[in-house]
């Protein structure tokens, strides 16, 4: 694949697609530096004050920390649940492995609005609405399918002979996992962690149903904010989110190799 230089036509097409996909995101950047009191493009004056104003919105700041904690917890739990699940499905070939795979990936296929409504009905009875564990449980439902999928692919691609070689060299099953399996799976684990974090961090639909006055996530707060306010603060916030996302993707790329982790 690397031997062939892409043709000029393909390059132009790719460039057009990039502009199409990224232009809306890029418009946000100048907007965030607007000196106006309203969102309008192009801005009539420039300022960085909207970035400072974010900190003056306690609801937004609180929601930001909630989202960060939520995404980090979701990520850790996804790995803690997804890794053994994927291992059992791929390696141990437990009875019902195919069923388990479908069960784990089913939430991906359901319209999230339907899923959100169903979870709302169940959770309302349990008193989970507006609580951290309630939103966390909801987020796990939508992030676990990604975790199991990516980790299962990663495990399936491992050379079993390497683990067998380690075994014959005297490594106990635990030592094989720690010294061979885990290091070889690192790209898959990094990809899973990043994916789960990002999916949880900008989840809107489920969160809209599951959050309440006591607890809100950043995307939900942003949604509410634009419903009532029209100043460029939201653009500044968007730029910060883009930067965070980009930082995570770059981190994965540097540590594990992006093409290797996602494009399998």
């Amino acid at each position, binding site marked *: 694949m690397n031997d062939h230089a892409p043709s000029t036509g393909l390059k132009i097409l790719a460039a057009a697609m990039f502009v199409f996909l990224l232009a809306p995101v890029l418009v946000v950047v100048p907007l965030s530096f607007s000196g106006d009191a309203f969102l309008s493009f192009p801005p009539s004056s420039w300022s960085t004050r909207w970035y400072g104003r974010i900190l003056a919105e306690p609801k937004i700041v609180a929601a930001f920390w909630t989202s960060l904690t939520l995404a980090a917890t979701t990520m850790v739990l996804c790995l803690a649940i997804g890794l053994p699940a994927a291992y059992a499905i791929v390696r141990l070939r437990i009875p019902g492995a195919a069923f388990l795979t479908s069960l784990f990936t089913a939430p991906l296929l359901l319209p999230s609005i339907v899923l959100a409504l169903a979870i709302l009905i169940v959770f309302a009875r349990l008193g989970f609405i507006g609580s951290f564990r309630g939103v966390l449980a909801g987020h796990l439902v939508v992030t676990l399918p990604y975790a199991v999928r990516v980790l299962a692919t990663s495990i399936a691609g491992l*050379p079993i*002979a*390497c683990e*067998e*070689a*380690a*075994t*014959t*060299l*005297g*490594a*106990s*099953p635990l*030592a094989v996992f720690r*010294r*061979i399996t885990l*290091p*070889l799976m690192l790209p898959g684990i990094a990809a899973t962690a990043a994916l789960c974090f990002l999916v949880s961090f900008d989840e809107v639909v489920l969160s809209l149903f599951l959050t309440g006055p006591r607890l809100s996530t950043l995307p939900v707060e942003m949604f509410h904010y634009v419903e009532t306010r029209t100043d460029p603060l939201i653009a500044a916030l968007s730029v910060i989110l883009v930067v965070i996302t980009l930082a995570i993707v770059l981190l994965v790329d540097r540590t594990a190799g992006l093409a290797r982790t996602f494009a399998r």
Partner: protein
Amino acid sequence: MARAGTAPSQDKAFLVLHRLRKAYDDTLAVDDLTLEIAKGELVAFLGPSGCGKTTSLRMLAGLTPASAGRIVVEGRDLTHVPPYQRDMGMVFQSYALFPHMNVARNVAFGLEMRKVPRGEIAQRVVEAIALVRLTGREQRRPSELSGGQQQRVALARALVIRPSILLFDEPLSNLDAKLRDEMRTEIREIQQRLGITSIFVTHDQVEALTMCDRIAVMHQGRLEQLGTPEDLYERPATAFVASFVGRTNRLKGIARGDTVETGGLSLRTCGTHQGDVVVMMRPHRIVLGEAGCVSADGRAVNRMTGCVIRTVYAGDVVQSDVRVADSIIAVEQSNRGSGELPAVGATVTLSFLARDTLVYPAAP
């Protein structure tokens, strides 16, 4: 418990496989494999793919659990010992080097698992890498090495733990022909120098014949014959061994005493037989030409005339197919550079000694 019912020559046998069996859902991959191997021997498990040779090796290593039977090394029953406590080194067909470790770390792995002191590890790793002639490449990653070098790292990694038995699973089949020859010599030399008991799984008869002290020929999960390369070639125990090791002519016939009637021919054979049989003879034991082969006893020579239907010039040898009565007989002559090729359509005389025939009961 290792001693009960073990074969008598246990004091001599270093490794004993006793009625080893592997059953999958509806097939027997290995069926009642029983054999003994002496200390320092290099034994090949030879057979076509699916004959159970790799499964047997994996049972030995403990990577595949045995369905029945016992594995005994130096009087110790290892059948239910987990693979990481068996003390066997294994060299894999795919090399199975750890891609995230450099050469030195790969080789050191087994010693680290054995909690060998750090100073000793460093010294033994240096020795092992020198043994396989890779000194200077300690810091390379496996992906930076050629196939042959990777296989030598795998060998060093298995040797450095000083295993009781070294297991090779088709280690040369991913190498090109020239490198394969070199590695063959190198592995044999190291194995003999260290006097390490080894089992070498291969489907390549040349590999088995040239490298190994003894060869176990396997077919459909069963041991067909265990013997020296010469035993196998000169005195094959079964029709399968005769046809798998070396080339053979194969004729069906009916035996009466020392004569077999086959396709309009009457052949003198070695020994006496009765009923439906298969007669085999090696193409290069058949002499082409008027002079033919001589024997003190004239009756012990088979002599016949036929028509050449195909001739292949293969460099060192010339192979011809000759139609004799209703049969086609392959003949191989060494190329001495003097004679001309037998012309297609020419009438030629063939002769071979009765003692060069192999006769087996026909398969039912």
